[in-house]
């Protein structure tokens, strides 16, 4: 039992400690107030005919009371042994009516009017607040749209400038690249020319040297044939 008490107690404490938003969203409160005002307007509308009915009923009662009083007066006059004072009786009846019926009717009418005024004022207040809220939201939305449009235009302008700058930079880079290629090509051509000239010089020098070597060989062969050198003495023939 103790365990059960513990778990119920713990559950209740945990339940209480769960995070709860302290206030309802303002939109919910506003919607509730609007619905209450709407319900108040409906109630006031439905009270209107009833109030009229009460007023008519009161008037009828007053008329019936007056008729009854006059009828009583007439009966009394007819049956009375002597003529009563009509003026005095009329004043008494008027005073009686004024004291009994008129204040009640007046109070009732004032209460009804004040209730209707209050309901109407509440409805008007809520409607006005709704209108102002809608207007405010509409204005905010317009400002947001205009700001967004201006921001988009500015962003587009900046992007165009950026694209133009990139194009210009690419063009300059291409021009520099082409100039570099031309320079490399000119250097290559110059190197080719120099290399060809060097080859020609080398070939001519080689040709002269070759001629000289050939001449030396001829001379050597001629000298060798004239002296008939022994096969075992090549060194002496070579030296000569």
């Amino acid at each position, binding site marked *: 039992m103790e*365990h*059960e*008490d*513990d*778990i*119920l107690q*713990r*559950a*209740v404490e*945990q*339940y*209480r400690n*769960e995070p*709860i*938003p*302290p*206030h*309802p*969203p303002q939109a*919910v*409160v506003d*919607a*509730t*107030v609007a*619905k*209450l*005002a709407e*319900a*108040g307007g409906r*109630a006031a509308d439905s009270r209107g005919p009833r109030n009229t009915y009460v007023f008519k009923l009161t008037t009828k009662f007053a008329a019936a009371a007056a008729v009854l009083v006059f009828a009583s007066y007439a009966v009394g006059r007819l049956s009375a042994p002597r003529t009563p004072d009509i003026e005095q009786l009329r004043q008494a009846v008027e005073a009686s009516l004024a004291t009994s019926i008129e204040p009640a009717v007046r109070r009732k009418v004032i209460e009804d009017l004040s*209730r209707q005024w*209050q309901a109407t004022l*509440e409805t008007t*207040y809520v409607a006005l607040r709704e209108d102002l809220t809608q207007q405010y939201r509409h204005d905010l939305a317009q400002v947001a749209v205009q700001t967004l449009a201006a921001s988009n235009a500015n962003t587009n302008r900046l992007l165009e400038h950026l694209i133009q700058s990139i194009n210009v930079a690419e063009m300059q880079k291409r021009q520099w690249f082409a100039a570099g290629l031309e320079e490399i090509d000119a250097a290559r051509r110059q190197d080719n020319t120099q290399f060809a000239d060097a080859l020609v010089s080398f070939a001519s020098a080689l040709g002269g040297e070759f001629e000289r070597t050939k001449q030396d060989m001829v001379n050597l062969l001629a000298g060798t044939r004239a002296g008939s050198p022994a096969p075992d003495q090549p060194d002496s023939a070579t030296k000569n």
Partner: protein
Amino acid sequence: MQVHDWNRITEEHASAVWQTAYRLLHNQADAADCLQETFLAAFELAQRQRVRSMRGLLLRLATTRAIDRLRQRTRRSCQESECEDWQQLASAEPGPDSAVQSQELAARLRAAIGQLPPQEAKVFCLRHFNELSYRQIAKELQITTGAAGVLLHRAKAKLRDLLAPVEEETRLPYGT
């Protein structure tokens, strides 16, 4: 006939009604609906009869409507799970930590309140969550103070029965 300033009443009591509804329903949309229904019901009631304590009336109406919704929700979840007992849906595995266990405990208490008879649930909620006295509860529910005590006792007993499997799981953490 009483004349009420409903704008002032709404501003004054909206937070208490909201907290009452939200604590029971734990769902923003349902709590918002419950708040609107509560104020409209109070308005209609105030047109017909004299209201002695607007706060008490609003808390009672909010609790009643929230419990109705909670019961509908419990019934719906029962139907969706083909009337399987919610107590059997609990995992046999131990909770990952005590915080999760506590959250689960609160959720089970919410489900258990949804299974109570409406009058007992109302008395339990008004007593434990809105902290009304027995006399205030009796006045709001138009019952005697003794009847309020009996209803509260029954509600506690039923809640203990409904929460008992949780206690067993806590004592046998591996479900063995």
